[in-house]
């Protein structure tokens, strides 16, 4: 080989070899835990900081692995488990998302921590059902979110002459009419499939009632959609479409909240994470905006949440870290500090909630009434079926499909799922 060729070959070998020779930094830290989650915004970061600080204080080392987007983060966790480099803990939702992982034996259980901390007694039923699979605890819950609060702008209500929060569906429609007459956008809506899905099941829970809701999502009753009561719910749900503005399709949920914040729109149906947007705009609950969780004093409180699962790792040090994480996450002080920053409510009711905001305090009080707790659909049905139902709802919302056809499509989806 000539000089030039040799030089070229050496250069390339060097370039590639340089990448091979690069080593990751040494990892000899006490109770090292790599935690994979999807909390990446400013507010969420502050919340994670509470968890990390608590863990560090308990003698651990927190290595952060954040990936925005729930699906991306969960997929990354699964990919890493398949590839043999799993994180110490990975975030999921209280749902059926991680059941397949349990079936394939890829998750470790935390029964030890659950027994030591009395999880059976202190956790609400929907959460317990989501994390206790076949008698073992496979996930640690960190928060409870309610995906269907009604947020409203006090200025907009004042302008439209609405005196009090609506207590029934009819009162809501009356309020929306008043907002329309006042020249405001009555319902701030983001026309993305997941938002339409949330609005639908919130409407079903409030207007159809918890029994009908459970019949659909827990029992998967194929004959339910054909009943006139269910069709009535579908019809009144579609009626909401008259109160959204022409620009609602495709809109991000934050942009809809922005309309409420600016007083351009009256009401938004969105989860309690919306408080983050209000906080960024320096608005406080009870002052510039109000919140109510549903229609009337016995409205259902939809329970969703985030959990962390623990991939099965054969390293006793890692197992110790996992158990320490589980203990720290559920400790009362951590729960309060985290909920404060996150906008969620703690997973246990035996904590001091004076430092939480108005809406969160309301939520905690409601949670004490067990009859009002309602699990979100993802806790009851597989992601696949949830997706199929979402397709039905989004088509119904966005086209002129008749109520009968939508009901038929729903029955078909239930049958196939």
């Amino acid at each position, binding site marked *: 080989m000539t000089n030039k060729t040799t030089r070229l070959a050496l250069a390339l070998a060097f370039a590639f070899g340089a990448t091979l020779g690069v080593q990751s930094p040494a990892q000899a830290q006490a109770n090292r835990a790599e935690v994979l989650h999807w909390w990446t915004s400013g507010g969420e970061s502050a919340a994670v900081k509470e968890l990390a600080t608590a863990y560090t204080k308990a003698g651990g080392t927190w290595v952060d692995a954040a990936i925005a987007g729930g699906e991306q983060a969960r997929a990354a966790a699964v990919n890493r488990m398949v590839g043999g480099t799993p994180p110490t803990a990975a975030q999921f939702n209280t749902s059926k998302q991680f059941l397949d992982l349990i079936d394939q034996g890829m998750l470790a259980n935390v029964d030890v921590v659950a027994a030591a901390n009395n999880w059976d007694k202190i956790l609400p039923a929907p959460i317990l059902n989501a994390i206790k699979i076949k008698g073992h605890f496979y996930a640690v819950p960190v928060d409870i979110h309610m995906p269907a609060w009604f947020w409203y702008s006090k200025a907009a209500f004042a302008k439209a002459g609405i005196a009090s929060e609506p207590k029934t569906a009819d009162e809501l429609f009356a309020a929306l009419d008043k907002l329309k007459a006042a020249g405001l956008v009555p319902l701030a809506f983001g026309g993305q499939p997941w938002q339409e899905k949330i609005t639908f099941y919130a409407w079903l829970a409030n207007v159809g009632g918890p029994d009908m809701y459970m019949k659909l999502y827990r029992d998967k009753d194929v004959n339910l959609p054909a009943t006139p009561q269910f069709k009535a719910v579908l019809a009144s749900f579609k009626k909401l479409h008259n109160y959204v503005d022409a620009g609602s399709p495709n809109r991000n949920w934050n942009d809809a909240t922005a309309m409420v914040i600016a007083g351009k729109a009256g009401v938004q149906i969105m989860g309690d994470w919306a408080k983050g947007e209000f906080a960024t705009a320096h608005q406080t609950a009870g002052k510039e905006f109000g919140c109510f969780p549903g229609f009337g004093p016995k409205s259902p409180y939809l329970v969703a949440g985030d959990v962390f699962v623990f991939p099965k790792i054969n390293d006793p040090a890692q197992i110790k870290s996992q158990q320490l994480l589980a203990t720290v996450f559920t400790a009362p002080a951590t729960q309060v500090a985290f909920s404060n920053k996150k906008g969620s409510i703690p997973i246990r009711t035996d904590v001091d909630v004076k430092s939480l905001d108005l809406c969160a305090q309301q939520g905690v009080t409601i949670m004490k009434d067990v009859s009002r707790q309602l699990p979100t659909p993802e806790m009851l049905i597989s992601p*696949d079926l949830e997706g199929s139902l979402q397709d039905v709802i989004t088509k119904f919302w966005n086209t002129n499909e008749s109520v009968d056809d939508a009901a038929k499509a729903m029955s078909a989806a239930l049958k196939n799922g």
Partner: protein
Amino acid sequence: MTSRRPLLRHLVAWAALLPMVATVLWVYVGSVLWSMRISVSSSRTLPIGDFVGLKQYARLFDSERWVLSLQNMALFGALFIIGCLVIGFLLAVFIDQRVRAEGVLRTIFLYPYAMSFVATGLVWQWMLNPELGLQATVRGWGFPNFTFDWIVRQDAVMLAIVVAAVWQACGLVMALMLAGLRGIDESLWMAARIEGIPKWRVYLSIVLPMLGPSIGTAFVLLSVSVVKVFDVVVAMTQGGPGLASEVPAKFIIDNLLVRANIGLASAASTVLLLTVLALLAPWFYARAHASRRAERVARALRASATQGATA
């Protein structure tokens, strides 16, 4: 002159091509075979080795969303490719007219290619939103009947996506065409002037055919984008309103990641691949046929040339 030691020469070439062969076999053929295997199983979040026959395929074609996604891809593909080729060609021709600030103009048309769609898609969503963007602005200028709400309409949302996609891709096509134009010999223009042929005729009848190769490469690159179109749809409309802007890649990825249904996703990607193969196979065959003919002609010419030389 005969080729020396053909076997050894082929061995060296094959040795150099080893990475390509390994890639083709291991990565592409291997993954496709694996994916096909999964498509006849009931895998959800993780691969399972059972066998359920063609159940996933039946479910696939029962799915309104999948059928719609194929239709959308066809519509998008036709408009996008034609749009990019035409606009790219026009831009290239116009820039080639020795305009001032050519470098600046070229950069202006190329910069969209540098940006990923995650943020630019959101900007397009805002701009095309009737309440927020162009429609509202033009109405504010005093044209109350101006409508530009494609993106919120079921029947027109794919057009909106085509607009954003063409914006991003036609700079590259323009560059390809411009280079092709620059490669055309001087004498052609002189001859045309002497003959008195009008400029536009020259472009249409002479230049365009000469740009055949550039157009061919652009076509391949654009086709790959059409089949894999995902980012622009997710960033602009998330497949909405409703299901109206669903595309195959999004269907596949949704089922892979969100709905924990990799059996269905694999079936969908197998169908997609077969569709692509069915469309490409005639083109590949025609190219291979043409090149083999050209090679035979070239070899014959070389043979006769050397014969003539040694005679």
